[in-house]
């Protein structure tokens, strides 16, 4: 199997999250800036000395247990108001749990090179995601400059009214929990496709 040696280098995520943390400081979003600043520091340490924070063991959760956890979390999100202490507590617990499920170190010496198909896919997804981010950025800057969310609606402004309704929260919770479960349970593909 061909591959490229894994060399210690600063992950692009460090730069990305550093920029996001700075952006949130500029926005005046204190908690958001702390979240991304902590993530930046963790990733920087991981890039330089992965063994400091490493664990070889992957924490796996039984599917039934995961389902029960997700259902309980969804019930809290739907039945309690937004910004409530139970919602915050459940989010923190899920975040910590997801962290431990994802923080295993595969200790590979070689990582398979991207195939042509994967490179094509990355280019396509980068274009789509960059376009979305540009639209969101334009909306945010327009709203900030003009003081009008109505003329320059960000995604949050558009979705906010639906989150005040239990059905809106239920729909979001279902998608968010499903996405999180997929992220913590997907098996990393070590061989080339």
């Amino acid at each position: 199997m061909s591959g490229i040696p894994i060399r210690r280098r600063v992950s692009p995520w460090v730069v990305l999250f550093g920029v996001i943390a700075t952006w949130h400081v500029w926005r005046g979003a204190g908690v958001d800036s702390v979240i991304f600043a902590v993530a930046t520091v963790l990733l920087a340490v991981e890039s330089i000395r992965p063994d400091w924070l490493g664990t070889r063991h992957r924490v796996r959760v039984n599917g039934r247990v995961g389902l029960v956890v997700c259902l309980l979390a969804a019930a809290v999100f739907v039945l309690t108001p937004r910004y409530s202490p139970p919602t915050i507590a459940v989010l923190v617990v899920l975040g910590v749990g997801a962290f431990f499920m994802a923080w295993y170190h595969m200790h590979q010496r070689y990582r398979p090179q991207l195939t042509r198909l994967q490179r094509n896919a990355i280019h396509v997804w980068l274009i789509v995601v960059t376009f979305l981010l540009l639209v969101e950025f334009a909306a945010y800057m327009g709203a900030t400059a003009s003081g009008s969310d109505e003329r320059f609606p960000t995604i949050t402004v558009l979705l906010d009214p639906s989150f005040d309704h239990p059905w809106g929260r239920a729909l979001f919770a279902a998608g968010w929990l499903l996405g999180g479960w997929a992220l913590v349970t997907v098996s990393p593909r070590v061989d080339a496709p």
Partner: protein
Amino acid sequence: MSTRDLILIGYALSLIGIFLAWLAGRRMPHRLASAGNLLAHMMQTRSTRFGLLVVWWWLGWHYLASD
């Protein structure tokens, strides 16, 4: 056409683009890797796993807990 209309069209085009990118990965396997295949490859590195989870978690925080 107002700026609101333009922005809404931008969001709509983004959603369509996301759907088409996902569909292309499934319908044209000789041209593009599927989203699942790409995700599995990316999740080999801990930094990417962690980065994606931070983004995921922050979305939940932002919409459910952050006033």
